[in-house]
């Protein structure tokens, strides 16, 4: 269990994916989803400058709150809810073991 956590990702078809995630590689949820070939674009590369990794946090984990940049980018996203986050701003850490996120729908 050295620096490996398990996170749950629900894709846009409702299917659950259990992913193992390293916490010692500076990875974020956008990168984790991409490496598992889940349909997350990550257009800007993780700078909170697009909204293509929009996801909902469905578990009760405490994640560091949104920066202004992230909040601003969510203004340009659609289907935004109170539990909306940009995956690139969720940094994988040991205390996120068991995290569950759901991928937000994509617009046109």
């Amino acid at each position, binding site marked *: 269990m050295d620096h490996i956590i398990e996170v749950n990702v629900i894709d846009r078809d409702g299917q659950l994916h259990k992913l193992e995630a390293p916490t010692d590689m500076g990875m974020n949820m956008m990168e984790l989803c991409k490496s598992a070939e889940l349909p997350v674009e990550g257009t800007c590369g993780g*700078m909170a*400058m697009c909204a293509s990794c929009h996801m909902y946090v469905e578990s009760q984990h405490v994640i560091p709150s949104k920066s202004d940049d992230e909040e601003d980018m969510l*203004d*340009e996203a*659609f289907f935004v809810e109170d539990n909306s986050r940009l995956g690139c701003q969720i940094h994988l850490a040991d205390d996120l073991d068991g995290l569950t996120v759901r991928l937000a729908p994509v*617009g046109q």
Partner: protein
Amino acid sequence: MIQTDILIIGAGPCGLFTVFEAGLLKLRCHLIDALPQAGGQCSEIYPKKPIYDIPAYPSILAGDLVDKLMEQAAPFQPGFTLGERAESIEKDSEDQFILTTNRGTKHRAPIIAIAGGLGCFEPRKPPVPGLAALEDHGVEYIIKDPELYRGKRVVISGGGDSALDWAIFLADGVASEVTLIHRRQEFRGHLDSVQKAMDMAATGKIQLLTDSEVTEAHGDGALKTLVVKHKTEGELTLETDHWVPLFGLSPKLGPIADWNLNINKNAVEVNTFDYSTNIPGIYAIGDINSYPGKLKLILCGFHEATLMVQSAFKRIYPDKNLVLKYTTVNGINGF
């Protein structure tokens, strides 16, 4: 008709460096970009972000990288068609490509290099049912001519500078009624724009609806009403002549998807020998191409551009020998 040797689609870093490498082989280039300025993502998305993996630059701002690439390309006098999207291609009787933009500008060249990055930046369209039918019939994603809104009722959605600035402008004696709708209470524009919009809301010049979003648009041939949903207080219906959703830009592959190129996951498949596509004379370099082991890095795009122009030269001048000449020996001889 604009004639050149290599027609480059996309004026990002990769397209700009192609001008330099082609220039060394005495090939002329012309760049087309849907954005109104050169630089692609570097200028449009992150001009103030540092990039750390450009060889010999421990750190360089994306905007500065574009400036330096423009300077490096300058001796080779590239042409630019900016603010226009490459739309369609055909071949003429002399085996040259004729490329037409969305505004009808025609370009002619024996070689096309697609350096389109993520594609063309287009306005983000809200997921409201039936919206497509109302586009240009009361729904506009870009304000081209503010006079269109004179004396009209206008609803603007968005929380950034463009939403604020247009709301302020149109509310100041242009439109008869301006409503600004935003999904939360805070706006992210410049502080003085935010203050001005708040002042105008206080005096009733702008009707401000926060914690709200448009969920429905109705009209028979032209927009008539919008349904606005408040986070906690339910729905209301607004009568309006125009709705301008301003949610920024996002990249789309665009018309090149219909050019019969082999496309895999929004990228153009190429042969890594020379980054040629399945259509002879068309190459694809940078973030828009795909091949086994592809990495979407600017420095990889530079390498691809360099190899690509060698192949383009041989295609244009099949009988000429090409000898690699080092810039350290010969310097740069511009046009």
